[in-house]
């Protein structure tokens, strides 16, 4: 997350861009996600791809207890994240999949499984 944040900051300093800066994660994963899109039928992401990319977001988060990272991990109990960290994780997921998650929906995402489920149901995620 530190890298993500610092790149956002760097991008913000570099340009007075009127739009949010493109995150590093998104740039790095541009290729696999494009391939996914080519191979999948209706433009939707496969659950495996979503899981992989959410794992990547969490792996970039220094504070995450990486040994406990799994598709059922609880952000707080397993990964050691507090409520503020969780807000940041959800923000990073929003950025990763280019979606806006309303606050009341975001509050319900407290585990890796819930994050994967949520993105799976968002057809505009890409």
């Amino acid at each position, binding site marked *: *997350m*530190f890298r993500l*944040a610092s790149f*956002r*900051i760097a991008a*913000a*300093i*570099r340009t*007075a*861009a*009127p*739009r*949010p*800066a493109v995150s590093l994660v998104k740039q790095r994963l541009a290729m696999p996600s494009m391939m996914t899109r080519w191979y999948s039928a209706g433009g939707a992401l496969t659950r495996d791809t979503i899981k992989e990319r959410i794992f990547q977001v969490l792996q970039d*988060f*220094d*504070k995450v207890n990486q040994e406990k990272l799994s598709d059922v991990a609880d952000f707080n109990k397993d990964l050691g994240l507090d*409520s*503020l*960290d969780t*807000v*940041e994780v959800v*923000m990073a997921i*929003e950025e990763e999949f280019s979606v*806006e998650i309303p606050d009341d929906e975001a509050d319900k995402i407290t585990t890796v499984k819930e994050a994967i489920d949520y993105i799976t149901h968002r057809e505009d995620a890409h």
Partner: protein
Amino acid sequence: MAAARRVVVTGLGIVSPVGVGIKHAWQTLVEGGSGIRSLVAERPGAGYDQLPSQVAGIVPRSSSQELGTFDTKALLMPGDANRMAGFTQYAMCAAQEALADAGWTAPTDEQRERTGVCFGTGIGSLDDITANHDQFRAGGLRKISPMFVPKILCNMAAGNIGIRYGFYGPNHAVSTACTTGAHAIGDATRFIQYGDADVMLAGASECSLQPLALAGFSKIKALALGFNDRPQQASRPFDKDRAGFVIGEGSGALVLEELEHAKARGAPIYAEVRGYGLSGDGFHITAPPADGAGAQRAMRSAIRSARISTAEISYINAHATSTPLGDQIENSAIKSVFAPAGNLSPADLPAVSSTKSATGHLLGAAGAVEAIFTVLAIKNNIAPPTLNLDSIDAESGFDLNYVPHKAQQRTINAALTNSFGFGGTNASLIFAKL
């Protein structure tokens, strides 16, 4: 009233332009090394080339645990870099070294209750304020980090130190511009004397080498001009060619401890905090009065509280930031306090040096790192040098021993350090051998 509890220094920690770690920083300082470098060369593309003053005292960084450098991976816990602003990161590092140096872990709940933190900053985190402002302008509320507020508050160095070590005693943070560090140490001493705690982790931190900060200080015409191509010569307190201060960054931490508490656990004792004096100029937002009356009051008050004679003080670590006016006013204030009748020869007066010649001006952290240097001067009987003092401006009253270029070995039983800040806030600390 019972005799005041005595307070001693039992641990030191530092993050500074002359190095990270006490041993490394002190050695660099005594050997005449400088931590002042070009911001344009160190951080290309960040916009410093648009500014008139492009030099700074920069904390050396590495990612390979190189000796004397700041390495976030080695010195911080996972996640710290994301949750803590730069000034807090420096503070965590300095605090860790100081506590390890003092051998103080406060293992029991009772000891934790008797251990507190007094840790300030002058500016806080401009980096996080400007970054979040940019995010907010670009993407609205959605793009504001939940860490924004917990990162920028000026007490977050103190807060995070208390959280990391589980200290339940007073948790305090002063922000008095360039006097912050001296106030933090002096106030922490008073907390111990008053009985609020037995051990205090005291100090200050600053991490504001932001182009915006330099731009602001440039507008005050406070920064050194004309040295962009020779950064190490930019900070030259007391010198005829001094042309403003050089901004710096870093953090200093001291473990202060009640004397009997320190003795009972066999802690190493560097020196005693003997005196603390505070004053206000009541005059102007950025300029001191011409007679340095506020500086004089702070020094006299510290001397009075130390119950010491001026003759016992043989070294002064001056605030002297290398500005034309400030250095001159402090110099005459020192002479007014130490030779009020003007009848003492310079040889009878304390040696006076400004370590800002090597570190630059660490703003809020200056008083803390300079207190450390003052304590080490006493411990090692060495007055650290004033670099770049090539031509002494004797006509302007600079006729003391300013320890030019080279450190001086001399018996230092007691020493004083000054800090003066914008807003007209002054403090002096006196340390002495036990």
